[in-house]
């Protein structure tokens, strides 16, 4: 840690971790509900819908906290200056946390916008927007005052601004369900396959540069090519969500072609990471942080690249759309692209903030491998269930519950792997919050 104000990042990370744990507990309830019967009396009080709203919103909340913390850690080092206002950073952290907790408790009482992933009620949306504006202001002012622009800073600020702007499309009430889904994807798709990719590509480039000591010019050159490809394939690739919603038929072509190319930037990222690691100019100090970086690139490729490609073509998507195949892809992609990236950032920054040069990574290693193996199995089980569902329900035309009964076994598998994942996560969280220097 070189600048005092980088310390604020620690509290963003520390706030994100318990939320991640809570997300997994709700996930277990969801998997249980798929496998066994939850009695009517429980369903009437705590339905699947509420638990799902909490599961997904916790994901967004902890990941955004991670990105913001990551930004507050990186920006001082990139600009070679302190954060414009530490007070604003604190205020914004507390505001976001309070909004998040109010929203989660609100869901329990049925206070919701009622649109998947965008359940946060409209009045709270306004608080989120104000918080985002404060964050952007704080980051932009730091950069403008320092006036030492780098590609990493530009990408980060661009991605965060894009992220905040897109959120606005999720706020209005749309009368026409077709238009509603059309703009719903401006938030969801353009976030995860646009804005979030920009933010994480910048964070990833920064950490990679610091870890490997590879020349900035080289890292930033590849960063441009990667984000260029991400946006080229990702923006028009939104079309792969417009096949079956009542939009014109040409979206089958636009979505099919552009999204078939979506694995390319991720593949480039993997190759690029491997090259940087091979041509490193520094010694490997904290091996686990490196493992996270490589693991993130590889899992990103599997979850987002491979699993996404598998069902993005209209001919296949006609049968897999709206099935558990999507859940398989969603879990692998979010874990690979964003959860591992955040954890990599935490493992990079938290020891530095605490002043630990070499940390004891035995617990952390166990956590990493347990989570990765468990999530890979979860993704596979969801996908098997999804293929069964597509065939039984969509191809054979049998009833929904008939398909569900064949899927039970695999959803039970998800439930049990969920416990393994939780064990890995609890180890990781404990490790991160109680980092110790390695005994040499």
């Amino acid at each position: 840690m070189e600048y005092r104000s980088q310390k604020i990042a620690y509290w963003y990370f520390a706030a994100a971790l318990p939320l991640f744990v809570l997300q997994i507990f709700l996930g277990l309830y969801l998997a249980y509900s798929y496998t066994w019967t939850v009695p009517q009396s429980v369903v009437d009080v705590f339905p699947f819908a509420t638990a799902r709203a909490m599961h997904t919103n916790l994901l967004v909340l902890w990941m955004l906290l991670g990105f913001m913390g990551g930004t507050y850690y990186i920006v001082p080092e990139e600009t070679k200056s302190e954060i414009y206002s530490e007070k604003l950073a604190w205020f914004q952290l507390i505001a976001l946390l309070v909004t998040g907790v109010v929203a989660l408790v609100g869901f329990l009482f049925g206070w919701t916008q009622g649109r998947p992933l965008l359940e946060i009620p409209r009045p709270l949306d306004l608080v989120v927007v104000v918080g985002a504006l404060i964050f952007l202001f704080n980051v932009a002012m730091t950069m403008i005052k320092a006036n030492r622009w780098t590609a990493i800073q530009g990408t980060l600020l661009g991605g965060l601004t894009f992220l905040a702007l897109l959120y606005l499309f999720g706020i209005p009430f749309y009368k026409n369900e077709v238009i509603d889904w059309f703009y719903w994807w401006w938030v969801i798709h353009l976030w995860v396959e646009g804005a979030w990719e920009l933010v994480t590509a910048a964070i990833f480039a920064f950490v990679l540069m610091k870890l490997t000591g590879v020349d900035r010019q080289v890292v930033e050159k590849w960063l441009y090519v990667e984000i260029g490809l991400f946006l080229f394939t990702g923006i028009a690739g939104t079309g792969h969500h417009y096949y079956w919603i009542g939009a014109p038929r040409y979206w089958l072509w636009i979505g099919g072609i552009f999204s078939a190319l979506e694995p390319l930037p991720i593949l480039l990222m993997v190759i690029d990471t491997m090259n940087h690691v091979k041509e490193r100019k520094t010694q490997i100090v904290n091996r686990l942080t490196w493992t996270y970086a490589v693991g993130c690139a590889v899992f990103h490729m599997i979850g987002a690249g491979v699993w996404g490609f598998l069902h993005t073509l209209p001919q296949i998507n006609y049968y897999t759309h709206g099935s558990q195949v999507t859940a398989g892809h969603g879990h692998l992609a979010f874990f690979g692209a964003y959860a591992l990236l955040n954890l990599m950032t935490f493992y990079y920054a938290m020891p530095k903030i605490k002043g630990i040069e070499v940390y004891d990574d035995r617990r952390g290693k166990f956590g990493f491998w347990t989570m990765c193996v468990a999530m890979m199995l979860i993704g596979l089980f969801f996908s098997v269930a999804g293929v069964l569902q597509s065939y039984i329900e969509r191809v054979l035309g049998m009833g929904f519950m008939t398909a569900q009964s064949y899927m039970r076994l695999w959803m039970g598998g998800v439930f049990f792997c969920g416990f393994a994942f939780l064990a890995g996560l609890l180890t990781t969280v404990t490790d991160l919050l109680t980092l110790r220097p390695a005994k040499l």
Partner: protein
Amino acid sequence: MTKKIAFWIFLLGTLSSAVVFLAATWDTHQQVAVLSNADKLDERVVAGKRAFEKYNCNDCHTILGFGAYYAPDLTRVVQRIGEEGVRYRIKSPEKAFAGSWRKMQNVHASDAEIADMVAFFKWVGEVNNNDWPPQDSKIRLSRGEQAMVASVGVSPGAAVFQTKGCMNCHSLHGTGGTFGPALDTVGQRKTTKEIERYIRDPKSVNPKAMMPPQKELTNRELEEAAKFLSSLK
């Protein structure tokens, strides 16, 4: 490759994709009214959408394939189980799903809200969405019809005739209802086209016809049924 070229790749890649996307978005807005039958999107449909969101239905069900996968897709729910079927399931899920191992929450929606939601589902079901979902396809035969064709070896039209309730009123070889005329030799009197027209709108052929128009049949089902009936000579 220099960093400058890399920057241009970024800029041109982003801009070209954005241009394609925004142009298609603009065009979609021009076409959406026709594709979604916006003229039928009345206040009840909008009220139904609000109720649908109020009770967070979409975090268990999918609609147009989006949402949670815990409960059946609702895109063509009215076509599949009928308006009464929808009302019953929302009103008394504890009864409707008493025998199921998966339960549905009773959201205690008012009768007015339920009626609005039915209007909403009906409207969504009519959206021209490239014939998704496949199991409720409007251009292909239903699974039950396919099974009869494959297992019993009857023609697709005969399968439609047997599964779509024609025999509640009509008979073939003495089997079936007596409310409508027997159809054993209908092919002698009418051509395929005439039969098609009759099934679709009986009154347009015979103003005194008692038979209700068969609006539920898909075009394919109608064609096959007419072909089958015209072959009976």
